């Protein structure tokens, strides 16, 4: 098992970049204010990060192991096909349940959608109430859930 230096550096860079991107996606999942923003982090950043990790692993086992390893290709193709499908299905379920969106959303899907109180770092109510369909003064603590 003797990997040339440039390939070693390339695999290490791919693993590190993949880990950093996936962690950024998970930070977005944990810290974004509402569900529709939270959907962006994992479905794009985490898929890209895991894809980078898979590419590094594919290079490593193709050089160090015996022949090209097929399982990484299979896992990567499956992840890249199913990630948009699961994101679309989850967004449709959230729209069906009428999950509340942030107060700064420009055009909410329906006017009566209740607004949870935005966190103070993102709250600028002067801009949020210029929209035609946002209801000012409503929904400070009327967060009714679906069931």
């Amino acid at each position, binding site marked *: 098992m003797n*990997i040339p230096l440039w390939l*070693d*550096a390339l*695999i*290490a860079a791919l*693993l*590190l970049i*993949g*880990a*950093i991107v*996936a*962690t950024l*996606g*998970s*930070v977005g*999942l*944990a810290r974004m204010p509402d*569900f529709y923003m*939270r*959907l962006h982090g*994992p479905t794009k950043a*985490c*898929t890209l*990060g*895991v894809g980078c*990790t*898979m590419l*590094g*692993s594919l290079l*490593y*086992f193709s050089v*160090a*192991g015996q022949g090209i*390893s097929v*399982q*990484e290709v*299979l*896992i990567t193709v*499956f*992840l890249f096909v*199913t*990630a948009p*499908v*699961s994101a679309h*299905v*989850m967004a*449709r*379920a*959230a729209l*069906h*349940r009428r*999950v509340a969106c942030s107060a700064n959303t420009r055009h909410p899907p329906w006017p009566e959608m209740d607004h949870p109180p935005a966190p103070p770092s993102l709250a600028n109510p002067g801009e949020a109430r210029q929209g035609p369909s946002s209801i000012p003064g409503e929904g400070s603590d009327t*967060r009714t*859930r*679906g069931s």
Partner: protein
Amino acid sequence: MIAAVLPLALLLFSVSLLLNLYRLLRGPDLTDRILGLDTLSINAIAVIVLAGIYMDTTIIFEAALLIALMGFVGTVAMTKYLVRGDVIE
């Protein structure tokens, strides 16, 4: 260089697993919990692959493929239950 990077990548993925677990436990709506579970399965695949490089074996990649499959099927089943009220109609 790979041996130096691997513990760092495992640490970063562990942090991201903890963040997903936080969203899974705290998520205000059911869809947030489903999203956290889906991301948890995706990050578990990456952790399994990094463990495979660390142990220098490709046997446990079957488990990663199985987790990918089951995570997708579980996500679709749970969201379909939320939307339609039934999984298999």
